[in-house]
């Protein structure tokens, strides 16, 4: 399933938003000049002005932490919104007084709300996500068991996506308005519009039923690399195609933007080889927005392949979440959401840091 954070079409609104947090001094030369000249008169150089990169990273970490706290609060209140008594709902037909008491105590739901709130935040921050309603096992352990499968799938999918998107997006962007560009645009529209679970089913019926490829399950890479690969191909393509479509559009836009920039004309006016202009001038500058969106895509894949995992009976986090919903295993659902949001935030943080390291406008300000 594609995520609206990242679906290709909503790219642009995201970009200005992100850029609001990062300096674009090159685009607003006048104001930049103002500041540099005026700043000299006033401020003494403090720690923060002397270490811009460090300051930037610290601020990002702080911001991420604040967001993470918000995420924990939201996740905590999810269970409070369940109409009726979650423990009773979860027990269903297994209900007995003793079972009820035991489960309520184990999950801490017998304490007053305020105590639950702080103890939830406290334990969440140290990685204790409570116990499963279904079998009483620690949620964290259940999640970590499934995480490697989902991580391999997400990495393979992003690999597939980049493999398709980088050449297509670059060619289309360089030939803006041309025939190839139109074809790529239409193809990417197709890719964004395909329901991923449907594509998974189609792939299964062709390759699994037709050619006998494995259509379900997962083998750890460390045990059987060949088995791992054969189990990975179809789900990775399924999840990767939608991301590829989104990334293609992003890369195209980035390439168009950069190739219209004046400094590319400068590079051309130096009589440089076409390839040099393409790589050193267009490529490196287009890399920055593409890096950002690739990070977001990867994060989205990690948490967004629920349906693909269901279709391929792939034992990852998504499948676990699906089962948790069916079983009304609220602590497990909460834990999974929290873990995925945490991964999402961490990847975004890493991308931002990488971004700052690449872009001298942040590194040296």
């Amino acid at each position: 399933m594609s995520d609206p954070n990242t679906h290709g079409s909503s790219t642009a609104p995201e970009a200005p938003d992100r850029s609001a947090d990062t300096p674009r001094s090159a685009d607003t030369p006048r104001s930049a000049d103002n500041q540099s000249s005026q700043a000299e008169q006033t401020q003494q150089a403090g720690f923060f002005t002397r270490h811009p990169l460090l300051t930037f990273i610290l601020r990002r970490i702080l911001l991420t932490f604040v967001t993470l706290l918000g995420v924990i609060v939201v996740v905590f209140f999810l269970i409070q919104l369940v109409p009726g008594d979650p423990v009773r709902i979860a027990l269903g037909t297994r209900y007995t007084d003793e079972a009820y008491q035991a489960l309520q105590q184990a999950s801490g739901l017998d304490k007053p709300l305020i105590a639950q709130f702080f103890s939830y935040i406290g334990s969440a921050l140290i990685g204790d996500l409570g116990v499963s309603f279904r079998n009483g096992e620690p949620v964290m352990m259940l999640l970590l068991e499934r995480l490697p499968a989902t991580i391999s799938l997400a990495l393979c999918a992003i690999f597939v996506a980049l493999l398709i998107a980088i050449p297509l997006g670059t060619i289309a962007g360089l030939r803006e308005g041309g025939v190839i560009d139109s074809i790529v645009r239409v193809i990417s529209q197709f890719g964004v519009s395909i329901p991923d679970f449907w594509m998974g089913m189609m792939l299964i019926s062709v390759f699994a039923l037709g050619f006998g490829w494995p259509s379900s399950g997962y083998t750890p890479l460390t045990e059987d690399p060949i088995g791992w690969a054969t189990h990975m191909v179809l789900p990775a393509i399924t999840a990767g195609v939608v991301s590829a479509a989104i990334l293609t559009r992003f890369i195209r836009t980035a390439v168009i933007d950069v190739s219209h920039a004046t400094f590319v004309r400068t590079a051309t006016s130096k009589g440089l080889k076409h390839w040099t202009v393409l790589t050193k001038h267009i490529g490196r500058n287009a890399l920055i927005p593409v890096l950002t969106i690739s990070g977001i895509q990867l994060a989205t894949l990690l948490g967004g392949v629920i349906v693909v995992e269901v279709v391929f009976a792939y034992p990852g986090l998504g499948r676990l979440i699906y089962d948790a919903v069916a079983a009304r295993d609220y602590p497990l659902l909460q834990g999974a959401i929290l873990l995925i949001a945490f991964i999402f935030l961490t990847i975004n943080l890493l991308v931002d840091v990488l971004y700052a390291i690449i872009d001298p406008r942040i590194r040296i300000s």
Partner: protein
Amino acid sequence: MSDIPADQASAPEAAGARRDPAPEAPVLEVSDLTVGVGRNDIVHGVDFAVATGQTLGIVGESGSGKSLSVLSATGLFEAPGGYVHGSSTLDGEQIVGAPAGLLRSIHGRRIGFVFQDPSTSLNPLMTLEAQLAEGPIKHLGISAPEARERSLQLLTELGLPDPELRLGYYPHQLSGGQKQRVMIAVALACEPDVLIADEPTTALDVTTQAAIIDLVAGLQRSRDMAVVWISHDLGVIGQIADDIVVMRAGEIVERGSVADIFERPQHEYTKTLLAARPLLRTQQKAGSADAHADREETGEPLLRIEDLTVDFEVSSPTGKRTITAVKDVSLDVYRGRTLGIVGESGSGKSTIANVLTGVVEPASGEARMSGDPVLRLSGADLKTMRRRIAMVFQDPFAALDPRMTVQRSIAEPLMAHNLLPRRQRRQRCAELLDQVGLDASFIERYPHELSGGQRQRVCIARALAVDPELLILDESTASLDVSIQAQVLDLLAELQDEHGFGYIFIGHDLAVVEQVSDTVAVMKDGEVVEYGTAEQILRDPQTDYTRQLIDAVPPAEPVRA
């Protein structure tokens, strides 16, 4: 942000140093060049030529096709559906229609380019060294250390302070003027035969502009290269060019030597451009010089600003800091008189306007309008003050809501202050349009259907709608072509005579400010460095900075830099 060491802004050479138009063969020769996109010709068959050691100035207002002609002639114009016909030869070699490989061997090696906006002309992710070395390594086949040595020499020659250190810098670490120097170094890195300078000083402050003009003139002499200098500013062209081509709407309307064009212009359009040129009063013929002489300032000021200080908090991804945009400024504006505020970008001149209109809160200081406080108002008081002080913005393209008709735009302040019943608003709009020289047929038009000058007239009409006492004109004519600018300035003067408004005229161009103002305040880095009557400032400037500004105004008679 002027980056010119004082000694560099040397006195221009005497006009006599100008070369005689050389009889030698032109290095770049363009004939019957037609450029267009899709089905529309934009440039209709132009001819021009430039010889070694000569500078050809191409002047025209925006949309005249001057940049397009030159970029097409040098093989740098590329657009989907674009076409170039005719001939352009570099030392006999045809450029129009030449294969990409040939163009690449010419670009950078034999023709160097400098573009308008230095802030976007350099790759933000590459060090200056890398950008300077690229061309020579490719064209001259030299090693990286050799290229570095070359770049170092070039930057030293171009007057960039501390070049060794700056080679490792990224573009964002330089000021605008420094970036343009680096851009010139990039263009000259392979010692080209021809330098194309496309509005190279337009985005720069006036004092920086003067320094760049001197620099290029000096480099041209030392290297004996041909220069094609494109500008909208006839004054600038007069300082740099030997021959001038005047373009309008894709055609050349007049050509000749600098002396011919300035002293014996033939075409009406050239005459208009010359007449509309902003000049200092001391440069003009006697008689017009004391047009304002009878306007003594008497009595109570309409607006008195005392010790105004404004601080800004600037937040960046790396933290917050406070900068002082305006520092201890005291100024007076009298009824029916104009206070001019002149300064370069970052001088704090526009901040004063924003404080007076209540958009920015001052840190300290006071301002009174006929005794009533102006600053730190809120609610009904603020609203009343906003009626008494009106503002006209710089960019008429952006100052009108594209989705509103002229009438709705003009009626907006009337509605905000509940001034007239709905039925009478249309009548009032027509009257206001009439006052600014537009007829009532404009009332239902949208901004995109108006020209720049017409839009600015609408903006002025809107400012007049609520009968203000004070008008703030913040660079109000800066984005207009010179011929339009002159008309709008005339209109403003008429309106002042008629209604007795006090004006605050904010500008970066001393010639324009001085022309319309009774008193002038010169601002630099948030402070008023000089304040007095226009006459005093001009005849007897007290600070070096004011003198620099005066020197930066292109003279009435062209003087070769």
